[in-house]
């Protein structure tokens, strides 16, 4: 049994689980403890213990660990051959099932709070924008189309066009996040904070949670794009990224209809 073969580019491909030695990877370990420092510890130091120095220290440990781990993970993903190819394309939709239930919990909370109140929106709610969310919807739907085009280009082996359409997709995503930032800034200036009233907590948690998904989707695209510049692409990974992006797009339709136009 040969343990190593080579790709067209001459980089060695390692087969996972071929039975010769114990498989190892430092990547998951690094990402977990990066997350551990960056989320629970940094949050607690800032919001629970109000300790600025430790907040900075823990964030400073966490972020590089995550970046290192993710880079390593992607590198291994591009050089090693899984036991069964293409399974991540099934894993991602299963993950999305779980995501749907998070959004459902927040929407259920929203419906319960709203339907049990006599007047809506509650006091201290400023005029919400109407045109901006429509524009943001346009941005996301267009980006779903562009990522689809990128995938088709990759399918036809046109790597340059793939990269171009992926960059366009990322730009649309960034434009979307800029709109979110602009809107938040505007609302915060009008003293509409998460703690203001029942609508503000719903508004910021649902749109904020969705925006974090846009951010994650963009991070996946950038993680695809950087190796793709060097000619290294994994089609399953691209498929996962695009499935996720379409999901983020569909959720936004629900967010817009429920939060802005109801």
């Amino acid at each position, binding site marked *: 049994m040969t343990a190593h073969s080579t790709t067209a580019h001459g980089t060695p491909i390692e087969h996972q*689980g071929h039975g010769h030695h114990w498989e190892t990877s*430092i990547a998951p370990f690094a990402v977990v403890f990066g997350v551990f420092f960056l989320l629970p510890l940094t949050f607690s130091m800032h919001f629970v213990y109000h300790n600025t120095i430790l907040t900075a220290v823990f964030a400073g440990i966490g972020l590089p660990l995550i970046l290192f781990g993710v880079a390593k993970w992607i590198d291994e993903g591009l050089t090693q051959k899984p036991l069964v190819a293409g399974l*991540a394309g099934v894993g991602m939709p*299963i993950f999305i099932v779980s995501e749907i239930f998070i959004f459902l919990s927040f929407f259920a909370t929203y419906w319960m709070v709203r339907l049990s109140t006599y007047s809506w929106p509650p006091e201290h709610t400023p005029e919400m924008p109407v045109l901006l969310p429509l524009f943001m919807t346009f941005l996301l739907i267009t980006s779903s189309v562009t990522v689809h085009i990128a995938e088709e280009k990759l399918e036809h082996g046109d790597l340059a066009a793939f990269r171009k359409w992926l960059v366009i997709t990322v730009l649309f995503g960034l434009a979307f996040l800029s709109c979110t930032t602009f809107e938040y800034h505007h609302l915060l200036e009008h003293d509409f904070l998460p703690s203001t009233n029942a609508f503000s907590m719903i508004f910021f948690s649902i749109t904020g949670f969705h925006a974090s998904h846009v951010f994650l989707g963009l991070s996946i695209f950038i993680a695809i794009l950087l190796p793709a510049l060097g000619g290294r692409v994994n089609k399953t990974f691209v498929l996962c990224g695009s499935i996720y992006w379409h999901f983020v797009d569909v959720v936004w339709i629900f967010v817009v209809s429920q939060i802005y136009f109801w």
Partner: protein
Amino acid sequence: MSDAHHGFNLREWIFTTDHKRIGILYLIGALSAFAIAGTFAIMIRMQQYGPGMQVFDSGSGYNTALYFHGAAMILVFLIPALTGFFANYFLPLMIGAKDVAFPRINAFSVWLFYAAIILALVSLVIPDPPDVMWTGYPPYSVTTEGNTAFYVFTVHLLGFSSILGAINFLVTVIYMRAPGMGWNQLNMFVWTILAAFILQLIFIPVLASAVTMLLFDKYLGTHFFDPAMGGDVLLYQNLFWFYSHPAVYVILLPAIGILFDVIATMGKNRIFNYKVCVYAGIGGVLALAGEVWIHHLYVAGVPDWIRVGMMITTLLISVPIGLMLMSLWGTLYKASITFNVAMHYASACLFLLLIGGLTGIPLAMTVMTANLGQTSFVHAHFHFVMALFSTFAIISGIYYWFPKMTGRLAEGKLAVVAFWFNIIGVNITFWPLFIIGVQGMPRRYFSYEQFPQFAPYHHVATYGSFLVALGMVLTLINWIKSAFWGVKSEANPWHSKSLEWTHTPNPPGPGNFPHDVTVSADWTPYDYVK
């Protein structure tokens, strides 16, 4: 390279992506949590020995002990032992796979679990430990001086770990079964793990959302659970139990799955009513698991139509559970039983589940819960199901697969003596709690000066808990001793027909199977009676 998998190499263990080693890492973490949370259990029992302060100097010390005992036992011991350790080590072997679908994500899961353990341990040494039990109900969890954030993040880390585990194992079972292995040829354990992970995938996100709102309420000043500002305090309880009732099945189902494999193998018998058990039993639990949670809110002021509706579903769910129990007992029918240590624990489980299940029926009824709900009757009921039944099933499984993992047997006098300490001890501990529960002994109170008449019962229960502690320590000593110096086992000591015994060495090396596995259409893991 040829001798790379001989000898101990720490680096190879910490960065491992091998499902068996990840399984062992889960086992070490889970057993450590069991030891610490078990110590808290003894302290709780000692505090309850008599009215007034016994071992804690304040009520909040007692609350912290309750928090750690409950959260660690359920979230860090039971669920990770079953869906982390057993699933990781044995499921790929049972279906003939070389590893899980996503080995690196699997490593990611186990280290998230360890990150949660670290956070839980840090919780014990900070000046403001969480004191919100394992349920974290507002408004107390929002107003307490304790660090609710650590509770929330512990849930987040474990939840994310389980969701990734769910993705991994669902894909593995669907796509990586040995060629020729159909759905009706799966081990019962594989079915129950599949079901447990479906529940985790769907319900954990709801718990994660609930505790996130708790975090926002406490630290960002939102009002999700504050009725004065348009929030709803019962919302938390609804979201929490929407996950946490199904969490009972996340524990119960794999525990039953282990019992099926132990009983069928040790009885050399087919699974009685395999298809009914799988499709109506496990399927029925899956279908009903999300429609019963209101039985935790019977006295919380919920409209009657929901209470009565969920009373009916709660009573109904004993039908699929009953089908599974019937299959367990039926598998013993005309079996030729080898009564080894695993089988001792398995038979104890049949008794414990019966008591736990029967005492659940009155609690399913709204009228009874109005009186029993806040008493130690509930406490004893769920300990019979969750603590005793599930833990005994876990111990049974460890004895059953001990030769697979170590190449050695853990049988012998010490194991049997420890078993009798355990089974007698748990009954002495929890039966008195049923009795005084019916008479009105409140749950969760750190002292019971108003009810001095219950003190004798508490004496008995506390002595019982010492017996269990002794039994567990002896069990642990036996495992450690046997792992290093135990009698060498033959390749398939129980003469099982299941792939993990017939096709892999003890313990399996990298890649699991020396030769690729295919199974024929008439093969089953319980192919004993022809």
